[in-house]
């Protein structure tokens, strides 16, 4: 592994070029004749000058410092780092999908509209909902969309008092943040000792000021909220709506559907459950599904079919408006649809079965060394409360950093907040038994090091290009761009 530590700006040399325009046969005028001098910048642009060779080497070397699902096991809880199929990339790169302008006349993009429509129908079937909006750009955006729909629903009924959203204390940070963005106040309810929603706490929080409850099922502890029917009844009786955070949908495909559990609105993370790439942070896609009662409020446009013709429908009289430009992340939806076609009705069910089996198997292998609840059925992920042995001072952070030395991406650390020293692990169905066994062996070895040689963990990682970054310094004196 080459040691490479240059910024692209440090490679810049005057006169280097990577790009050239063709000659033009249009008679060129002076720019000042076309655009008045007062608007023009006559100084050199502050951009680097590099050659194509520089560019390729620079980014290839950067890529070598990265770890992706294609590199190895990536058991990040709550993220569903499953394998990203290559056929998805090929399909997204087809000329007919990649190179179409969003404002082209509809008759020239029937294939794109048909894909969107079929995806809409497929996601409705998987979720048990009546109609999707494919517009939201990501999970958090889907949450915001869903909450906006809930708000519009109550407003349309003159129910202006409902300004609160209930969120369990185990919820992902985006839930209360989205509620805030949507103009709601959050009420947090406690989980039971076991880690599921405390029904009494929920009852106490419900009132005619509550617009709804946001829930993920299974929850962030990987536990199925088995009282969901009662929860749905309570919320509906109180006049609220039920929102399903689809982050954990990988556990339930073909087994149970949010629509059947009583949820009124749902979002999926295509970049989790439906195998589209995480991209180093994005782009994702967070389509939202609704029951009939919310269909009138959907963002414009939706995708509809009339006979053989597919079209964009802007005629939604009580629509909340637009959540973003155009129709959603089409490029991501092509990938997700290819995945749904690949797995099909039988395969999607198998996905959940194997995701859940893998998680339970791995949990079983680790339970003697890491703190896990006894006799528990997990779904697709489980959360360890750090090392089982309480002797050493070794923290979850140390375990995570030591895992890097063995070539693994660590599980999610310190989330959910209700578990002390949380290590949230989600293997996904794309991993083999051998991978799980190897990972378990390493985790066990680390647990033993924690007793016999804690220093090696406190000082980990040892083998990575950089080690234990000074985050305090980065936050106290932020340097957010290259100054030269």
């Amino acid at each position: 592994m080459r040691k490479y530590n240059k910024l692209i700006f440090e490679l810049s040399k005057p006169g280097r070029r990577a790009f050239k325009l063709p000659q033009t046969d249009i008679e060129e005028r002076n720019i000042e004749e076309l655009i008045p001098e007062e608007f023009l910048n006559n100084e050199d642009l502050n951009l680097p000058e590099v050659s194509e060779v520089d560019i390729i080497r620079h980014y290839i070397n950067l890529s070598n410092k990265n770890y992706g699902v294609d590199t190895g096991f990536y058991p990040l809880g709550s993220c569903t780092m499953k394998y990203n199929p290559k056929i998805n990339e090929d399909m997204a790169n087809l000329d007919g999908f990649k190179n179409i302008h969003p404002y082209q006349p509809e008759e020239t993009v029937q294939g794109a509209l048909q894909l969107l429509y079929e995806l809409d129908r497929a996601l409705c079937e998987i979720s048990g909902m009546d109609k999707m909006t494919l517009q939201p750009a990501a999970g958090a955006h889907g949450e915001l969309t869903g909450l906006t729909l809930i708000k519009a629903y109550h407003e349309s009924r003159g129910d202006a008092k409902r300004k609160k959203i209930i969120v369990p204390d185990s919820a992902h940070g985006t839930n209360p943040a989205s509620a805030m963005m949507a103009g709601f106040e959050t009420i947090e309810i406690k989980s039971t000792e076991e880690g599921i929603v405390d029904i009494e706490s929920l009852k106490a929080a419900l009132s005619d000021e509550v617009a709804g409850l946001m829930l993920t099922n299974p929850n962030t502890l990987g536990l199925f909220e088995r009282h969901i029917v009662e929860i749905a009844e309570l919320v509906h009786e109180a006049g609220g709506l039920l929102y399903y955070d689809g982050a954990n949908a990988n556990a339930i495909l073909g087994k149970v559907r949010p629509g059947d559990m009583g949820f009124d609105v749902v979002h999926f993370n295509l970049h989790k459950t439906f195998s589209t790439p995480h991209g180093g942070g994005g782009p994702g896609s967070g389509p939202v599904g609704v029951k009939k009662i919310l269909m009138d409020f959907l963002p414009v446009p939706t995708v509809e079919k009339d006979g053989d013709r597919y079209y964009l429908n802007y005629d939604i009289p009580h629509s909340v408006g637009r959540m973003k430009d155009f129709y959603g992340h089409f490029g991501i939806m092509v990938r997700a649809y290819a995945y749904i076609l690949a797995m099909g009705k039988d395969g999607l069910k198998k996905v959940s079965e194997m995701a859940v089996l893998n998680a339970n198997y791995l949990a079983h292998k680790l339970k003697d060394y890491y703190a896990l609840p006894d006799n528990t059925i997990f779904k697709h992920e489980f959360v360890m409360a750090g090392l089982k042995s309480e002797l050493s001072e070794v923290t979850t952070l140390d375990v995570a950093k030591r895992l890097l030395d063995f070539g693994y991406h660590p599980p999610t650390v310190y989330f959910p907040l209700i578990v002390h020293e949380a290590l949230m692990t989600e293997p996904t169905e794309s991993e083999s038994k051998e991978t799980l066994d190897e990972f378990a062996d390493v985790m066990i070895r680390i647990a033993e090091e924690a007793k016999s040689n804690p220093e090696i963990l406190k000082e980990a990682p040892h083998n990575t290009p950089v080690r234990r970054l000074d985050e305090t310094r980065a936050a106290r004196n932020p340097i957010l761009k290259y100054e030269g």
Partner: protein
Amino acid sequence: MKILKDLYYTKDHEWLRVEGDEAYIGLTDYAQDSLGDIVYVELPEVDDEFNKEDAFSAVESVKAASDVYMPVDGRIVEVNESLLDEPNLLNEDPYKNWIVKIEIADKSQLEELMTSDEYEQYLEEV
């Protein structure tokens, strides 16, 4: 955890030191220890008025952020600007490095606060 006598304390880990009709407010040792290395302190403006339990400031560390709440109703008369350049002062000495000085609006509210002994007991339960 260091606790100074002669200060008032709140359950959100603020301390208050009375000086006549005014008071200094800061974070306790327990608070700075839980937050870790403090990287930023958000300060209110002089003359801002707050009620008891309003958030008048926020303190950020690398991995966490915490609001700081008014122990009593009051008006800001001075803010500790050195915290803007050196937020780490709160870690170094949380009792010497106050966050704001206020004019107390209602002195009777002081009775609702904890004494140092009560706060010590409170910390044992937390």
